[in-house]
């Protein structure tokens, strides 16, 4: 009921080419699905494989009738993945990164004692917070087979590292209160030396806990906490208690 003076275009619908349009649509959707699949598998789903702990052949901790088991996990920490001795990993894309090897996801049984044996091969970076030089949350002291600052091999039980500039890494499970410093290879030690640190802690009910290193060892990144420290599979991971 309006006096419109502009001409109106009334277009009748010519026969649309459904076939062409449907084909374009299917092609676009297919491309999208392919990209999504590649994205999920290559970028998103990149968990390190799970290492299940093995029952200890020679338990460290006297369990005195508690009925729990003691299991062992054997790890290696390296200054560069290309220098790995126990667990070489040539397929890793970051050969120059510090890393825990062979993996960073561990599975241990519930209500048990876990013993970690860590072959530490990296040189010292030093702790940002010297508080972490004191071991916490472990059963008894931790045992170290190491090279002292004169390059002489030593062995002994320790509750802490006296010099906060000597750890190369730490192994810490904050939710369980476990914090253990890992001594770095001193400059006077022969090349290829390994410091072996052994410690044990209790786990309770089932759950998933994260663990991490507290030494800023992500070299070249701001505050040392980038790179391997911020990528899963190198300096942090999960402890799955089942």
């Amino acid at each position, binding site marked *: 009921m309006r006096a419109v003076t502009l001409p109106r275009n009334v277009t009748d619908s010519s026969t649309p080419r459904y076939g062409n349009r449907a084909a374009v649509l299917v092609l676009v959707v297919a491309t999208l699905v392919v990209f999504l699949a590649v994205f999920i598998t290559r970028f998103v789903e990149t968990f390190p494989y799970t290492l299940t702990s093995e029952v200890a052949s020679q338990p460290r901790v006297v369990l005195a009738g508690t009925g729990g088991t003691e299991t062992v996990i054997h790890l290696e920490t390296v200054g560069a993945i290309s220098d790995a001795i126990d667990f070489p990993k040539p397929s890793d894309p970051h050969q120059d990164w510090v890393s825990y090897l062979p993996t960073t996801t561990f599975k241990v049984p519930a209500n048990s004692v876990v013993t970690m044996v860590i072959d530490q091969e990296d040189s010292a*970076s030093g702790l*940002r*917070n*010297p*508080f972490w*030089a*004191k071991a*916490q949350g472990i059963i008894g002291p931790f045992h170290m087979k190491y090279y002292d600052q004169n390059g002489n091999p030593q062995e002994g039980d320790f*509750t*802490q590292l*006296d010099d*906060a500039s000597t750890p190369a890494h730490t192994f*810490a499970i*904050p*939710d369980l*209160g476990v*914090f253990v410093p890992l001594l770095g290879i001193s400059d006077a030690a022969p090349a290829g030396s390994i410091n072996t640190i052994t410690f044990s802690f209790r786990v309770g009910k089932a759950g998933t806990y*994260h663990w*991490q290193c*507290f030494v*800023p*060892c992500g*070299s*070249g*990144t*701001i*505050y*040392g*906490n980038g790179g391997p*420290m*911020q*990528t*899963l599979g190198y300096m*942090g991971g999960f402890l799955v208690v089942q």
Partner: protein
Amino acid sequence: MAWAVLSVIGVVVALQVNMPPGNQTQQASDESSLLHLMLILSTPVCIGVVLFILYSVFAFRAAPGKLDDGPSRRGNLRMQWAWVVATAVIVFALAGIGINGLANSSAATTFASSGASLGSQTVGTSASDRLQVQVIAQQWYFTYRYPSYGGAESTHLVLPVNANIEFHVTSTDVIHSFWAYELGVKADANPGVDNITYVTTTSTGSFTVRCAELCGIWHGNMFDTEGKVVSQGDFATWVANLQSSESSITLPPYAPQYFPSPRVKGT
């Protein structure tokens, strides 16, 4: 009409809700009361708007098939002013209450002295006597230092009840945020900054500390469920144990900020 009835019901329901974070500290009580007040105020507003929309949709529906116009009313200045003034009044009132609450969180309460002395210092029982606690945020865990007890450091936060606490929150790397939920405390931990916030504990209990500012891969795991507010005697025992257990390691001297080297190892 229906709005009044529903609003009353709504307000009664809202009054039953126990708003977090609770009553463990004075600040938490203030925050809970403010949240509760805002919930009560917003209930009639929401109910009113929804009722208006529903009523309009049913009462003013165009008859199907007909296309006539509504009345050509372009405004009513008095109603517009009334609305603006009413919303302004509510808003300013809320702002006033908020500012009042803010002022309270900086003032401190004086408690009757309990007579107990802890080591070399009576814990903050009066306004001028605050227990200083430094919260150090690092990627990805909080640690706490007590400067009045030799700078002893701990992974769990333990506080005495009925005390004025002065938190000094700082970070050694990126921005974190110290959020002690039941204490009603949140303060960002900025590197190189000493962020001070106050709390007055009023009842014992446990609390959870979480990091509330994205700080990297383990941000979600940066929490501690074992914070505790304990009696003053228990606190004295605990902090004495802490000091003695740490006599063997050399912690750096207490400082309000720490300036670690930004780039390490290899560059």
